[in-house]
C-alpha cells in the first residue's frame, strides 16, 4: 500500500473507432504508468482523441469521475511536466 500522487505518464493506447455504451467513438483506451510504478487501464480526458494529441510518455494527472453513488473511476488528463521530467 502507498499513497499515489496521481501523476502518471502515457504508456500505450488504442483509439477505438466504434462506440460502446458510455463511450462515443473515437475514444482512446489507454494504459498509464503511475509515477510510483504500477500501470493501469484508463481513459484520457480533456484531450483530443487523436494520435497527434496522444503522445506516448506525455505527463498526465488523475481526475476522478463519479459514475454512480458508490463508484468513482480514476481517469487521466494531460498536465504540465514537472521540473526535471
Amino acid at each position, binding site marked *: 500500500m502507498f499513497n499515489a500522487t496521481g501523476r502518471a505518464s502515457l*504508456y*500505450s*493506447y*488504442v*483509439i*477505438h*473507432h*466504434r462506440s*460502446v455504451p*458510455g*463511450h462515443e467513438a*473515437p*475514444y482512446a*483506451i*489507454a*494504459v498509464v504508468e503511475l509515477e510510483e510504478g504500477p*500501470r*493501469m*487501464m*484508463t*481513459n484520457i480526458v480533456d484531450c483530443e482523441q487523436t*494520435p497527434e494529441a496522444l503522445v*506516448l*510518455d506525455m505527463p498526465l494527472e488523475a481526475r476522478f469521475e463519479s*459514475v454512480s453513488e458508490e463508484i468513482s*473511476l480514476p481517469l487521466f488528463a494531460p498536465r504540465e511536466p514537472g521540473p526535471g521530467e
Partner: protein
Amino acid sequence: MRCSVAIVGAAETTELGKLPETSQIQLHADAALNAMKDCGLKLEDIDGIATAGESPTSLAHYLGIVPNWVDATTVGGCSFMLHVRHATAAIEAGHCETVLITHGESGRSRVGRGGYGRNRASLQGQFELPYGPMGAPTLFTLPVLRFMKQYDVRIEEVAMVSVIQREWAAMNPRASFRDPIDVDDVLESKMIAYPFRKLMCCLVTDGGGALILTSAERAKDFPTRPIYVVGSGESVETPMVSQMEDFATSRAFRVAGQRAFESAGIRPRDVDHLMIYDAFAHLPLFGLEDLGFVGPGEAARYIWERNTAPGGELPLNTNGGGLSYMHSGMYGMYALQESVRQLRGNAPAQVDGAKVSFCLGVGGMFGASGAVVLSNEIL
C-alpha cells in the same frame, strides 16, 4: 521420454468459413470423425479426450466415447497446445493409450455457442471494462504503440506481416482470403482501433479441427506418418493485458517457448517451419523475438526483408494464418494442423524437406501460451 508419443490422426472440419447450418458441437464431431478416418480408428479406440470451449462431457456424450482420461484445460486459443502437452504426459504415464483432442467453434454464425460472461466482479470487470474495451481488437492491440516506440518500428512494417501472410494464403485453396494485397491496401483498410486497421486483424469464421495422439510404439502400426511430439511448454501471465510485465515482450511466450526448446533439445536454428498464432499482425513480431529467432526489436525488419515469406529462410504461418486462412476464435488448433501437414509433406504451400516444426499459441490477450515442437523423425 522424448519422442515417445506421436500425432497419428489430424484433420479439420470438412468445410471452413460461413457454416450457419452447423452447430458448434457438430463442428467438433465432424473434425473428430475426419481425424479418425485419417488414421483408421473407430470411436471405441479412443480412451482419452481433451477439448476447450466445449465441455468434454458434452463431447464424450455426443460422440459416444467412454474416456479414461479427460482434460478440459481452457486458457484461450492456445488450449490445444496445452492439450498436446498434457496428452503426451498422460500417454507416457499409462493413464490412457489414444487421445482425441477436438476444437469446433461457430465463431461467425454463432450456432450453439455459449456466450462469454462479462462478470463485473472479475478483475477485468473491475479494472478494464469500465474504460470501454470491446473484445480482442481493443485489448490484444494495446501493447503495440509501446512496442513500436521502443523498437522504432513503423506501421508499414506491421502491415507487412499481413501482406506476407496473404502471399502464403494465395497458395492455399482452403484459405478464406487469397487475393494479393500490398502495404497500402492494409493501411487504407478500415480503421478498427488505431493503429490497427481491418487487414491487421484476424478473420472471424466457423470451423474446427482434431488431433489423435498415441504412443510412438503403437504409432508404427498406423497408415499415417507419425508426427512425434519432441518438446513442449506452457505458461500463463495475466488475465488483464494492462498488467503485462512489459508491453514489448510476452512473458508467457518466453516461458513456454524456452521450455519447449529445452525439452526438445533444439535451438531456433534447428527449426524448419514455424507457426505463431496471429490473431493480430503484431503477434508474429512478439513471437519471433520472444522465442529467440531474432533479437529484441529485430522482428519487424526480419519480416520486412522477406525472411518469413515464401522462399525465405524461416517459413512462417504457411497456411496464411489467422489473418488470411481462418480464425474461429481459438485458432491454435489450425496452427497445429498446419504443422502436421508440413511434416507429413502434404501442405498446400509445402516447405521442402521440413523436419522440425515449432508451433506457438497464445491465449486470451497475451494471457497464456502453449508451445509444441513436432518432428517427422525421432530426434
